[in-house]
C-alpha cells in the first residue's frame, strides 16, 4: 500500500514539476496562449480556466519538497523538446541519464491510474474475508476517498485529478455499456421486455417529476440556502433519478441473483438512460435557451418532447445499423482473421460516437449494437478470435469500471462543494420513497398482465437495487455554466452524497440481505439435454397454440422473428449458413457441453487410477474409450493452467466421440489429415513452419469446430496424438 502511495506521489510530483517547467515557457512566450493550450491538452483538468492560476504556486511548493535536481534536468529537456521559438537549448554537459517526464507525461499518468486502481482490487482480494465483504465498487470508492484526502494533505491542486466529463463519456463509459449489451441474455430480455421498458420509461419519468416537485416546493418555502428555477431543479432530478447500469453491474454481478431479477434491475438501468439523458439534455437546452433568449416559446416545448422519442429511437436505430455493418463485414474476414476483432470493437465504438454526434442516445446505440451483432459475429469469427473478443471486452469494461469508481472516490476532494443539509436529506429520502412507490405501483399493474409475477421479495430487491452511480456524476459535472456556481456546487455535492449512500450502503448490505431473505440464486448448472430439447419443443408448441387461437402473443412474435432470422438475416450476415426454418444451435451446444463435461470427468477419474498404457489392438469399444480418455487427460494436463476456452474443449471432445463412433460403424479408415494449426502460434518459428508447409488455416466445417483445429495447436505433444490418430487402424498411445 505504501508503495502505491509512493508511486502516486512521484507521479504527481512530476506533474507539478512539468507545470513548473511550463512556467518558464510561459515567461518566454505569450502567457495566455500557453495556459490555454496547457488546459486543453491535459485530460485531468477541469474545463474551468480560472482554476489554473493557483496551479503554478502549488507546483512550486511541491517541487521544493521533492525532486530538485531532476527538475533542472527536465527543464533542460523541455527546452530541447520545444525546439523552435522557445529560446536557447542548454545542456551543460553530456547527460547520460536524463529524466524526460514531459514527453511521456500523459500516457504515463493514464497507465499509472489504471495500474493503481487495479492493484487496489488485487490487494483487497488477497484477503478472502475482506474480499467478499464489500463489493469491489465500494472498495474502490473508499480507497479513492482516502487517496483524495492524502493528495489534498500534500497540497496538490485538486483540478489535477478531477474527472473530466468528456473523458468519462467518450472513453470510460462506452466499454462498459458495450460489454453490457454484448453479454445481455437476449432471451430473458425479450421475455421481460414489458417490465423493463415500463420501469425504464415510466419509472424514470415518475421519479424525475416527483423529486423535482418536492424539491421545488421546498425551495419555494425557502427551506434551502439557494433558490433555483424550475428547469434547474428538473435538470437535477433527471440526472439523479436514473438507476446506473455501471453500479448495478458492479454490485449484482458479484451476488449471482437469479436471472429474472437481474434482467429486470439491469434492463431498467441500461434503458432508462434513454430517458434520463433525454430529459437531461432537454432541460439543459431549455436552460441555455432561457439564458440566451430569455424565454421559451411553445415550439421549444413541443420539440423538447419530440426529442424524447427521437433520441431514444434514433439511438436504437443507429445501433441496429452499425450491428448490421459489423456482422456483414465479419462475414468476409476469412483472410484477415487476426484483424477481425478490430471491427468488432471499432464499429460499435463508432456507433456510440455517431449517436453522440447526432445528439441521440449513445448508450442505447452501443448497447443495442452489442446485443444484435452477437449471434452473427460469433458465428463468423474463428474460434480463437471469438474467445479473444469476449475476453477483451470484459477486460476493457472492468478496467473502465475500476477507474471510474476510483475517480468517484476522489471526486469528494476534487470538487467544489456547497453543503446544504436539508437539500441532501430531502433528496435522499425523496429518491428512496419515490422509487418504492414507483416500483410498487408498476409491479401491481404488471402483475395483472403477466404470467410470471413479481413477488413481494422481487419488489423489494427492485427497490433496493436502485443504485446511482457514475453516469449521474458525469452528467452533474457537465452542467451548463449559465447556472449559478453555488447551485452547481450544491448539485454536485448532493449527487456525490447520493452516489456514496447508494453504492456504499445499499451495495454493501445487499448481499447479506439477499441471503437472509433467501432470494433464489442463479442456477449455474448446465441445462441437461432433455431440458433444452423440451424448452425448444415447448417454444414451438406454444407458438402453435397461439396460432390456433389466432392471438399474437410473445411466443408467436418470437417465433416469427426466429423464422425471419433464419430465412433472411443469418444467410445474409453469417458465412456458409444453411438456410433452414429453425435454429437448433442451442440444443446442439447443450448436447456438446454435457457430453464433454462427462468425458472430462470420466477422464479425470481414469487419471486417478493410472493404469499402464500399453499398445492394444483396435476397434473394441473398450479400447476406443481408453483412447478417448488418454487424449482427454493429456489435453487437460496441458491446459490446466491455461485458460483454454471451454467451448473449444467441448467441441473437441464431442467431435472426437462422434468420430470414434462413426469409425466403429463404418470400419474403413478415415483419410489422414494434417493437423490444422490455430490462428496464432506461440512464437514466430511456429508460424513460419506452418507457412513453409504451405498450409493455410481452414475454417471449421461444423458448428462445433474440428478436431484438427484444436489438436494442431503448435505443441509437440498434441501433434503426437493427432499423428497417431491418423494412422489407422492401430491406436497406440504412448505417453509423451
Amino acid at each position: 500500500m505504501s508503495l502505491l502511495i509512493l508511486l502516486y506521489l512521484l507521479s504527481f510530483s512530476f506533474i507539478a514539476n512539468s507545470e513548473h517547467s511550463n512556467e518558464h515557457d510561459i515567461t518566454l512566450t505569450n502567457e495566455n496562449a500557453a495556459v490555454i493550450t496547457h488546459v486543453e491538452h491535459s485530460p485531468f483538468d477541469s474545463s474551468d480556466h480560472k482554476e489554473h492560476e493557483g496551479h503554478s504556486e502549488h507546483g512550486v511548493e511541491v517541487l521544493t519538497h521533492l525532486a530538485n535536481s531532476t527538475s533542472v534536468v527536465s527543464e533542460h529537456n523541455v527546452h530541447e523538446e520545444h525546439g523552435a521559438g522557445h529560446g536557447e537549448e542548454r545542456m551543460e554537459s553530456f547527460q547520460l541519464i536524463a529524466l524526460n517526464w514531459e514527453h511521456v507525461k500523459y500516457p504515463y499518468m493514464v497507465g499509472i491510474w489504471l495500474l493503481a486502481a487495479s492493484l487496489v482490487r488485487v490487494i483487497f482480494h488477497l484477503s478472502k474475508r475482506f474480499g467478499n465483504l464489500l463489493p469491489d465498487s465500494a472498495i474502490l470508492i473508499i480507497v479513492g476517498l482516502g487517496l483524495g484526502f492524502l493528495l489534498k494533505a500534500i497540497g496538490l491542486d485538486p483540478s489535477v485529478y478531477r474527472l473530466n466529463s468528456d473523458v468519462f463519456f467518450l472513453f470510460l463509459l462506452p466499454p462498459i455499456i458495450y460489454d453490457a449489451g454484448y453479454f445481455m441474455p437476449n432471451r430473458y430480455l425479450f421475455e421481460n421486455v414489458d417490465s423493463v421498458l415500463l420501469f425504464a420509461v415510466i419509472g424514470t419519468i415518475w421519479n424525475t417529476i416527483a423529486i423535482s416537485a418536492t424539491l421545488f416546493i421546498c425551495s419555494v418555502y425557502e427551506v434551502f440556502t439557494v433558490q433555483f428555477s424550475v428547469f434547474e431543479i428538473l435538470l437535477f432530478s433527471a440526472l439523479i433519478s436514473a438507476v446506473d447500469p455501471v453500479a448495478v453491474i458492479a454490485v449484482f454481478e458479484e451476488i449471482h441473483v437469479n436471472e429474472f431479477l437481474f434482467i429486470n434491475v439491469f434492463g431498467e438501468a441500461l434503458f432508462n438512460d434513454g430517458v434520463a439523458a433525454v430529459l437531461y439534455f432537454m432541460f439543459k437546452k431549455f436552460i441555455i435557451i432561457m439564458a440566451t433568449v430569455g424565454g421559451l416559446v411553445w415550439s421549444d416545448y413541443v420539440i423538447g418532447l419530440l426529442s424524447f422519442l427521437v433520441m431514444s429511437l434514433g439511438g436504437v436505430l443507429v445501433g441496429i445499423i452499425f450491428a448490421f455493418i459489423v456482422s456483414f463485414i465479419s462475414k468476409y474476414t476469412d483472410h484477415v482473421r487476426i484483424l477481425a476483432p478490430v471491427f468488432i470493437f471499432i464499429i460499435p465504438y463508432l456507433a456510440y460516437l455517431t449517436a453522440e454526434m447526432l445528439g441521440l442516445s449513445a448508450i442505447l446505440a452501443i448497447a443495442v449494437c452489442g446485443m444484435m451483432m452477437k449471434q452473427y459475429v460469433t458465428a463468423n469469427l474463428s474460434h480463437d478470435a471469438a474467445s479473444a473478443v469476449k475476453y477483451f471486452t470484459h477486460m476493457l469494461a472492468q478496467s473502465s469500471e475500476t477507474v471510474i469508481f476510483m475517480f468517484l472516490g476522489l471526486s469528494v476532494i476534487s470538487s467544489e462543494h456547497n453543503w446544504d443539509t436539508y437539500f441532501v436529506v430531502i433528496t435522499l429520502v425523496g429518491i428512496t420513497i419515490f422509487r418504492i412507490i414507483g416500483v410498487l405501483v408498476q409491479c401491481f399493474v404488471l402483475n395483472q398482465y403477466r404470467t410470471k409475477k413479481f413477488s413481494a421479495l422481487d419488489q423489494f430487491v427492485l427497490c433496493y437495487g436502485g443504485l446511482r452511480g457514475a453516469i449521474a456524476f458525469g452528467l452533474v459535472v457537465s452542467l451548463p455554466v449559465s447556472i449559478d456556481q453555488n447551485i452547481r456546487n450544491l448539485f454536485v455535492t448532493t449527487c456525490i452524497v447520493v452516489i456514496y449512500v447508494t453504492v456504499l450502503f445499499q451495495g454493501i448490505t445487499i448481499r447479506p440481505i439477499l441471503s437472509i431473505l433467501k432470494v433464489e440464486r442463479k442456477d449455474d448448472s448446465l441445462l441437461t439435454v432433455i431440458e433444452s430439447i423440451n424448452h425448444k419443443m415447448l417454444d414451438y408448441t406454444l407458438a402453435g397454440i397461439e396460432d390456433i387461437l389466432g392471438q399474437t402473443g410473445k411466443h408467436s412474435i418470437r417465433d416469427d422473428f426466429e423464422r425471419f432470422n433464419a430465412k433472411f438475416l443469418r444467410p445474409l450476415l453469417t458465412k456458409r449458413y444453411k438456410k433452414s426454418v429453425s435454429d437448433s444451435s442451442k440444443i446442439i451446444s447443450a448436447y456438446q457441453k454435457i457430453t464433454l463435461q462427462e468425458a472430462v470427468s470420466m477422464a479425470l477419474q481414469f487419471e486417478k487410477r493410472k493404469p499402464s498404457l500399453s499398445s492394444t489392438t483396435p476397434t473394441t469399444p473398450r479400447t476406443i474409450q481408453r483412447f478417448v480418455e488418454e487424449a482427454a487427460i493429456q489435453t487437460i494436463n496441458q491446459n490446466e493452467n491455461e485458460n483454454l476456452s471451454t467451448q473449444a474443449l467441448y467441441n473437441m471432445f464431442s467431435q472426437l466421440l462422434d468420430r470414434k463412433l462413426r469409425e466403429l460403424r463404418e470400419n474403413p479408415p478415415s483419410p489422414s489429415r494434417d493437423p490444422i494449426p490455430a490462428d496464432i502460434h506461440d512464437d514466430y518459428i511456429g508460424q513460419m513452419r506452418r507457412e513453409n508447409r504451405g498450409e493455410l488455416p481452414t475454417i471449421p466445417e461444423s458448428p462445433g469446430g474440428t478436431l484438427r483445429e484444436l489438436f494442431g495447436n503448435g505443441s509437440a505433444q498434441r501433434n503426437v496424438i493427432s499423428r497417431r490418430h491418423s494412422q489407422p487402424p492401430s491406436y497406440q498411445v504412448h505417453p509423451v
Partner: protein
Amino acid sequence: MLQDEEIQEIAAETGFSKNQIVRLYSRFLSLDRQGRGYLDREDFLRIPELAINPLGDRIVDAFFTETGSDTDFRINFRQFIRVLAHFRPLNKHKPNVINSREEKLRFAFSMYDLNKNGYITREEFKFILNMMVGSNITPDQLDSIADRTITEADADNDGKISFEEFCKAMERTDIDQKMSIRFLN
C-alpha cells in the same frame, strides 16, 4: 350458438371466464369453415403459421389425442376448449385440475408419445428431434443426442421414458411459466 348453461358448465370445468369462452367459441366457428360443428385435421392445418411450424403436425395430433378421438379425428367445441384449458396460467387462488402442472406436463408428454402407450421410446424421441433440428445436424449427432436424452431421464433403465421419469427430468423447469398463454378477454 352457446347456451348459458353450457357456458356455465364449461367455465366450471375449465376455469375460463365467460368472455373468454365466447371469444374462443367465435374462433372455433371461424376455423370451422364448412360449419359442420366439428374440426378435423385439415381445418387446423389450414392455419398458415401452423403449417410452417416444425411441430405443427404433432400439435394437431396432440389435440386429437387428448380428446381420445383419434379414431375419427374430429373434435367439437367442448373438446377444443378442454385442450386449450391446459394452457391457462396457474392461479393459486382458484386451482383447477385441468391446468395444473401435471396436466400441462401430460400434454407435453403426449407431444412425444406417438403411439400413446405411456412411454417415450428412442425412436419416438428421434422423430420429434428430427422435426425440430433434423436438417442442421448429421444423423450420427441425432442418434447421439437421442441416446443421451434417454440415458439422462431413464431412471429404471428400461430404455424408454415413462411419464414419471419425464416429470422428474423437468422438475427444474418452471412449467407454469413455459406453458401458459394469456387468453384475451
